[in-house]
């Protein structure tokens, strides 16, 4: 696995790196962690092993860095690098992680996806008070699991500024997966502006970063493709809801520089290999706000784990990785250079790196996919509501979308247009429905009616989905016309199933809600500061968590401290995850064993959504 012989210059570089933590180093794009240069082993100055424990010393600091040719004063680094260094642990050992804060403000590290005592979870205000300036906090916990994870600040908006890094936990027993070489691929989004300014812009000016809004020209394009009536009523439908089908990401490539292992595209992060080798790529989406679509043109990828948990190998050409998710894939390069291409979900930008047999090689960089917009499924009407339409396209509003009591406006005289439009919009759902009927039947919540409170969640929710669908077999917005393989959650199957075979004794349902106009994000229409208590799980119980997305955006929902076994229809082979991306208008469910007493954060992992209120505490009592 070691590839040190590839890096004759390594020791000299590490020297330079040491010297450079003092400040800037001209010529380097940023001070990159060792794994960005292919060094994934555990021989770091800040790592020691004593009495069977892995001990890491991590220092959080503000370090001026050059990113893509521009110097920024604001990176928050750990041991001088952006992203933070690799923390490599071993299943069955103890981890001792000493974190020293040299910032003038409090900080924290959350070990994302790790099963540990709640006091070690690193969420200020929930698990501990935070790490004050000048303090060192010692995290200490037994390492129970293995796989690819990551860590990041849970304080304020620090995560946006580089305070994130990868974790690899080696299994106690050797894995059955064979590979010759491995790389960590940390994807992230960087801004040269203050995250506080970014947040304010989102709060006071809806769509501030969205330069892909619908224009008059787009309307006439619709007229061309779908005819006047359908185009008019499509515009009308979105207009009545005051929703934009183009709200795909809140912060876009107009603001962000996308990074792969800390390098923008121009710096071309490169992972070296020798012909014939199998490479394990550990993808981590450490972005604040960006879903990425990842592919390696010309090279199929075999997904072997999701969120650190092994899955039955599944070959694919592309996968969408939600914020905070991880995927491990195996590739076997056939050429001397391959582009690793990660474009933002809204196609407003991308970052690329290269797998190559020599430094300095490049492969063609593909164009980004055309920009796209959401279809009707996003409104929570889904494919199933097609059945509710009469032959001439009339829609039964009871199973359609609820626009806050303004439904009569929809069922007016627009007869054929509605039906036609919905056929287009719900296209992808329709095509897949037949092939996955069996799957859908096994999802326990499928077809179940949904209830919203009498106030439809109040002003905190700009819309509600009254007929949300399980769309786990839908790769998501932008892939409607894809003619290659794109990974879906329904393809993820665990290898052996999980220890707790009990069915759910209880159900907890939470709705993902938001109001873009004021950038209010919440669960059930209530921001964190508006709720009257934590969500309670009872210790030892088996429960089903049902998430209904009542908003127009994808939300990566993260539960700390416990696994969520995603009910995909795969029965006991359901995968388990720490972060579940829920598409607009979608309902998903997961089984949880409440075996971790204490308080745990539960939130949307889009940083600014979390900070706007989409956050709850789960108390296991």
């Amino acid at each position, binding site marked *: 696995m070691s590839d040190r012989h590839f890096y004759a210059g390594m020791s000299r570089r590490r020297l330079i790196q040491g010297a450079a933590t003092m400040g800037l180093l001209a010529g380097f794009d940023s001070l990159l962690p060792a794994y960005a240069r292919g060094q994934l082993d555990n021989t770091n100055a800040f790592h020691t092993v004593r009495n069977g424990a892995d001990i890491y010393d991590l220092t959080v600091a503000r370090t001026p860095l050059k990113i893509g040719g521009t110097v920024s004063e604001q990176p928050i680094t750990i041991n001088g690098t952006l992203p933070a260094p690799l923390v490599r642990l071993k299943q069955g050992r103890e981890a001792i992680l000493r974190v020293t804060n040299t910032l003038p403000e409090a900080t924290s590290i959350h070990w994302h996806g790790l099963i540990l005592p709640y006091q070690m979870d690193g969420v200020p*205000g929930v698990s501990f008070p935070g790490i004050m300036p000048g303090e060192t906090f010692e995290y200490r916990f037994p390492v129970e699991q293995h796989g690819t994870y990551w860590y990041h600040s849970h304080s304020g908006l620090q995560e946006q500024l580089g305070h994130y890094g990868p974790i690899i936990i080696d299994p106690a027993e050797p894995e059955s997966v064979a590979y010759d070489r491995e790389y960590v691929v940390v994807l992230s989004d960087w801004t040269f502006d203050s995250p506080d300014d970014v947040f304010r812009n989102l709060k006071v000016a809806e769509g501030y970063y969205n330069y892909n809004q619908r*224009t008059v020209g787009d309307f006439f394009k619709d007229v061309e493709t779908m005819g006047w009536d359908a185009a008019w009523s499509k515009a009308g439908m979105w207009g009545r809801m005051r929703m934009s089908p183009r709200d795909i990401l809140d912060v876009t490539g107009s603001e962000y520089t996308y990074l792969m292992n800390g390098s923008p595209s121009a710096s071309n992060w490169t992972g070296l290999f020798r012909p014939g080798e199998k490479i394990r790529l550990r993808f981590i989406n450490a972005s604040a706000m960006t879903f990425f679509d990842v592919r390696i043109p010309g090279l199929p990828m075999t997904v072997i784990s999701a969120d650190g948990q092994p899955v039955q190998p599944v070959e694919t050409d592309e996968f969408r990785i939600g914020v905070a998710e991880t995927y491990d894939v195996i590739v076997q390069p056939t050429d001397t250079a391959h582009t690793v291409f990660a474009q933002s979900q809204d196609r407003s930008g991308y970052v690329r790196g290269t797998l190559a047999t020599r430094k300095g090689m490049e492969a063609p960089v593909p164009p980004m996919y055309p920009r796209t917009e959401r279809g009707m499924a996003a409104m929570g009407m889904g494919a199933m509501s097609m059945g509710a339409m009469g032959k001439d396209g009339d829609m039964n509003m009871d199973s359609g979308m609820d626009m806050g009591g303004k439904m009569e406006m929809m069922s007016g005289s627009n007869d054929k247009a509605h039906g036609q439009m919905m056929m287009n919009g719900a296209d992808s759902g329709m095509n897949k429905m037949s092939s996955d009927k069996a799957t859908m039947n096994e999802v326990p919540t499928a077809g179940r009616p949904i209830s919203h409170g009498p106030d439809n969640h*109040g*002003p905190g929710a700009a819309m509600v989905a009254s007929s949300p669908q399980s769309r786990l077999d839908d790769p998501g917005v932008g892939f409607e016309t894809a003619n290659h393989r794109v990974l879906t959650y329904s393809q993820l199957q665990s290898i052996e199933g999980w220890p707790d075979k009990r069915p759910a004794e209880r159900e907890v349902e939470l709705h993902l809600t938001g109001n873009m106009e004021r950038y209010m994000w919440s669960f059930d229409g209530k921001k964190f500061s508006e709720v009257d208590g934590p969500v309670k799980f009872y210790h030892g119980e088996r429960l089903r968590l049902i998430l209904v997305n009542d908003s127009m955006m994808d939300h990566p929902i993260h539960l700390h401290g416990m696994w969520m076994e995603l009910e995909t229809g795969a029965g006991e082979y359901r995968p388990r995850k720490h972060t579940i991306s829920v598409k607009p208008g979608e309902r998903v469910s997961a089984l949880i064993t409440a075996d971790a007493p204490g308080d745990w954060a539960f939130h949307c992992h889009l940083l600014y959504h979390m900070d706007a209120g989409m956050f709850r505490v789960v108390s296991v009592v």
Partner: protein
Amino acid sequence: MNIMMNRIKWVVGASALTLASGAGAAGTGVQAEPDWTLPIHDNQVFGQVLFDRMEYQRDGDNELALWDAQAWIGKDRNRLWVETEGETDLSSDSGDIENFDVQYSYRFDRFWDIQTGLGAQTTFGPSPNKERYSAIVGLQGLAPYWFEVDTNLRVTDDGDVSYDLEAEYDWLLTQRLILQGRGETLVAFSDVEEWGVGSGINNVGLGLRLRYHFSREFAPYVGVSYTRFLGNTEDLREREGEDVESSSFVAGVRWWF
């Protein structure tokens, strides 16, 4: 400009201190200590100053400068809202502050604020000036089909009642070039000759402004504006020898910070 805007931003930011820090929020778990910080701060104070129209108008030989601005400060649902609109005749240096309203604004619906407060209306310039005050209740928000609407019912200190309505609509020609349509009207429920107000519909104003966004914040524009006085108000103005109709070329800037 940038430095100034940053400074103003800083002032706004400084007043946007995070309230309610310190644990004890109901949603925090069972073991949080009272002196712990909150995990997130979703209840911050923000503020914004928007000059929706800061413009020069020319109708024949008449030259006017006009402003239409609003500012707010507050949280997601409760805000203090200040709005002002007025114009000055550039040849005589006289004009009027049509309204200077200070209102409490509450978001009661997904897209609508109810606003209530006090407003002042004054004239200024060489001739004798006058002023009056009113109590206001109004709605501001986003109507279906993306119309920005601001509407108020006013009762003056003399007991005169009027109702005004403004609506704006943006057509995106490109991501940065935007054509804004604007309409406004005022209905009075009594004659107030001193203020040139006749009962009934006073006027209808229409405007089209084409603006280019150099940034989200800063967008200069050019356009046309048309106003027609109607009914009793029209008669009143005819008697006073004032125009009952005007078409203007306008140029100005929309900006916020």
